[in-house]
């Protein structure tokens, strides 16, 4: 039988940081560790930075007239990312009249949102060959663990993909897994479940990718590597 390669990815994270000045510290809730962010994370399209508009804000010409309360996306020209600390610094309007923004002097009026647009941290995106699948078992009505031989090479351990799916959809999930591993599709990887955005509203929305129309109603996966 031809080998198949299944891709699993967790949802892309988002983090709100409220009450900040122009230097905003992201945390491991967004990327773990934050040192995976660096100076090109904005221009590379790894993260998206948004600021909730407030009447106190003075925006550069790029932004027009935002609606108070909306999260406004700041292009990468409007912020910098530290090489390793996860700190994002907003460019002030006085330095860049186009992409800069003058924040409120009241920290409570400066609420930021960070959206991860790519998978960059270990254990959030993985690819397994079907031949290393060891089985799957129910955890509860809407969760199932898929087991694969551990990538560490430890014969006493496994890598686990915890799948959250529709209630009582274990059999549908089993059929999905079987179909993916015996798929007539060859010459390409199989996106079994690639999580999309958790952000909403004015954020860049990336839809989740699912295999075969998602009959099991998968809503998320948790990649648990040995």
């Amino acid at each position, binding site marked *: 039988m031809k080998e198949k390669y299944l891709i699993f990815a967790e949802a892309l994270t988002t983090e709100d940081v409220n009450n900040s000045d122009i230097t905003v510290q992201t945390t491991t809730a967004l990327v773990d560790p934050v040192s995976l962010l660096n100076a090109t*994370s904005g221009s590379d399209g*790894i993260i998206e930075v948004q600021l909730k508009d407030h009447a106190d804000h003075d925006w550069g010409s790029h932004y027009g007239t935002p609606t108070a309360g909306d999260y406004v996306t700041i292009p990468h020209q409007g912020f910098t990312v530290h090489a390793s600390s996860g700190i994002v610094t907003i460019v002030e309007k006085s330095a860049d009249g186009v992409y800069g923004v003058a924040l409120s002097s009241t920290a409570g009026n400066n609420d930021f949102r960070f959206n991860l*647009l790519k998978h960059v941290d270990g254990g959030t995106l993985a690819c397994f060959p079907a031949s290393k699948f060891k089985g799957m078992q129910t955890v509860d009505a809407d969760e199932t663990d898929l087991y694969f031989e551990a*990538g560490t090479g430890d014969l*006493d351990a496994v890598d686990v993909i915890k799948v959250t799916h529709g209630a009582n959809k274990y059999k549908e999930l089993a059929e999905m897994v079987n179909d993916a591993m015996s798929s007539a599709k060859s010459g390409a990887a199989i996106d079994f479940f690639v999580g999309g955005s958790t952000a909403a509203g004015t954020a860049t929305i990336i839809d989740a990718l699912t295999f075969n129309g998602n009959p099991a109603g998968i809503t998320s996966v948790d990649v648990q590597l040995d």
Partner: protein
Amino acid sequence: MKTYYFSETSPADAAGDAILLPQSTFLNMDVLSATSIIMQFKKIDGTHDNSHITITHAAGKAIDAMRALAAAMAGNTKFNVIDLVEVANLHPVTSAPIISAITITI
């Protein structure tokens, strides 16, 4: 039997420059950073550990690199020895080659 060939340099003329691994020993791929993923294989010396290849790719292209490598591994080939990086870069899922370097850890 398919085998996968990896070379840090060409020609491979020093210890650790290149490695050939059988398909049956491939365990998984995981993301390491914005510009790198890791391919893990059963340890070449038979111990309960892994040998791995670190793949350096264009920023933010982890899933594209995985797809390209998986396609190279799954594809029909004239020869059973597949130079994975070469094949993945010749037939990338995006418009341009995305793998720029590899590091072999035996």
